[in-house]
């Protein structure tokens, strides 16, 4: 890894803008990612996550605005940016007819990694990712999770300081997803900076910083704790025999900010003053003998559902 002068942020973007025809994918966006962060870009499909990452990765030219990676412009100093970044696109983008080892070899060679380094890094990366026994398998015959790990391994072959990962875990089974995040955690410990886009809210908890993107703009950003703190009240789960009827009844109660179905449970965001468990049982009591209420931890899903519904007026106005 190259040394990074202290105080330099890994990514600094100002006023980034990109349109595709009439669609504004990214709108006047500012982003700061500190060196060493695991920065999660959350948001639904079409929020602009990929467009943002591709502009920072130098593969897409912004219409307006500027972005710097370790102090170098992504448009005017591409040659200084690309050696220090590893970009993993959302789609599987390895050669399907080449083996795992051949793909690593090819991309590392064109990225200027010397032969000795190529061999030793490929070996250690494949081992640490549990891909060693599949080194000679053609990429097209890998499972979804293994394909993603191959892409990550390829991204890491030249030892980049900044990883730009575009939905690396989308469509991957839960076990592989956990495995993938374990690898990202170890990269974080090595001091690398990670910018990762994901549609999975639960993955936000694994990031040091997160930003919530919607319709081309960052709606919320901060540490997971800071963002959770923006949600007032407490979260409760109500179990009942007839969740739909319970949901209808709960929403009408005073002190309930919002409620939604979560599997067979009704999740209630309580902003009232009274003790919520007693108040809910009292309010719903009599309709259902099997009714139980318990407190739950506020998760990111709830946070973003709340924040989306209670979006600041300015954001809502310009976002449409």
């Amino acid at each position: 890894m190259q040394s990074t002068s202290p105080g330099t942020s890994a990514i600094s973007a100002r006023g980034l803008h990109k349109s595709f025809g009439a669609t504004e994918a990214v709108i006047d966006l500012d982003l700061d990612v500190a060196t060493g962060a695991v920065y999660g870009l959350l948001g639904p499909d079409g929020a602009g996550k990929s467009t943002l990452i591709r502009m920072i990765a130098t593969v897409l030219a912004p219409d307006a605005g500027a972005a710097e990676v370790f102090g170098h412009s992504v448009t005017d100093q591409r040659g200084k940016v690309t050696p220090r970044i590893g970009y993993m696109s959302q789609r599987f983008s390895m050669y399907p007819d080449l083996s795992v080892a051949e793909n690593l070899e090819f991309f590392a060679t064109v990225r200027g990694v010397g032969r000795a380094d190529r061999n030793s890094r490929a070996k250690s990366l494949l081992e640490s990712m549990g891909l060693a026994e599949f080194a000679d398998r053609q990429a097209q015959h890998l499972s979804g999770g293994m394909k993603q790990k191959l892409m990550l391994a390829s991204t890491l072959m030249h030892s980049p300081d900044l990883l730009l990962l575009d939905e690396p875990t989308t469509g991957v089974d839960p076990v592989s997803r956990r495995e993938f995040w374990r690898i990202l955690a170890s990269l974080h410990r090595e001091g690398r900076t990670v910018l990762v886009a994901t549609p999975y809210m639960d993955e936000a908890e694994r990031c040091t910083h997160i930003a919530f993107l919607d319709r081309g703009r960052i709606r919320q950003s901060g540490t997971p704790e800071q963002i959770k703190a923006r949600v007032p009240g407490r979260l409760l789960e109500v179990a009942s025999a007839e969740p739909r009827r319970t949901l209808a009844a709960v929403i009408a109660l005073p002190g309930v900010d919002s409620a939604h179905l979560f599997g067979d449970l009704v999740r209630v965001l309580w902003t009232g003053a009274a003790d919520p468990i007693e108040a809910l049982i009292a309010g719903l009591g009599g309709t259902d003998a099997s009714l139980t209420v318990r407190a739950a931890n506020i998760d990111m899903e709830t946070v973003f559902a709340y924040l989306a519904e209670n979006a600041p007026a300015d954001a809502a106005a310009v976002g449409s």
Partner: protein
Amino acid sequence: MKASLTRIGAVTNKEFKHLLRDVRTLAAVVLLPVIQLLLFAYAISFDVDNVPTMVIDYDKTPASSEYVRAYDASTFFKVVAHGDTLNQVDTAFDANTARVAVVIPAGFGETIAAGDKAQVAVLIDGSEPNSAKISQAYSVALNQLYDQSMTKSWAASQGLDLSGIGALEPRVRTWYNPERNSTIFLIPGLMAVIIAIVTVQQTAVTLVRERALGTEEQLLVSPMRRTELMVGKLLPWTLIAFIDVVLVILLGMAVFGVPLRGTPLVLALGSALFVFASLGMGLLISAVAPSAETANIMALMIAFLPSFLLSGLAFPLDQIPVVLQWISGIFPARYMVTIARGVFLKGSGFAELWPELLTLAGYALVMVLVAARLYGRKARA
């Protein structure tokens, strides 16, 4: 420089792997030229021989039989049927069992024996103008020959000696291809078309494929330059194209007896330049085509058709409309056809062919540079 060569080498190495693992493509690029050559050479031959011929002999004398034998003896006509009435000619023409009919009227033998000029009717199926024209010419020639030999034998029977009589007889000689065998003329030209098909078609899809696979973006974040990618992709195809060239030349010489009168060096240089020009054209298509399907169709439209129709292969360039002659100038095939025919048939060398060689070299350079430029503009959009 060393880093650049390493990257080009990596791309070339990778392209070879793609090719070797894709059995169908590999078979196509090696076998197709051979099959195309055989098909084209046999199917496109403009020679006419063994024209199925029907004979209707109303005379049925030794003289008429001898006349019919003259047709049979020529390699041009092949007597396939003997009929009794003219109606049978219609039927045979309709069924395509015969394309020429020779009708000998009654009294043919008597007329000849009397020393008079006998008449025969030769009917030709004109639905295929090329064969029809040639059939007519041959038939006239055959009758003249027969006429002369009969005149001689009549004179001999009358005790006259005609050898003393002066007769002016033209001696026509065709140079370079004395038998005027069209296969010999076609094969050097076909070489150009086959190279164009293999190279343009295959390289046309190569960059589109990188885009479709998403690997293009990974290459964009590497220090690799566009021209390095292009050159790396060109090298394996250059080799394949050369194998094809050698195959076609060997087949042409061994199977079709095409003579190689000039120096192979000029031919090799011309082929190399033409291969590069064609590959460059393929890359250009690949750089601008949005999908593999479009690339394929574009390759067909701008590589195959012009090299076939506007290269002088099928139609002499000075006999097509002037506008088409200009258009033919922008496709490299015509230069290659000229070079190939010059070297093979006329034994031409640098002294005669340098303008074509120079044009091809310039063409190749421009194609690769423009392709690299357009490819770069397309990415990052």
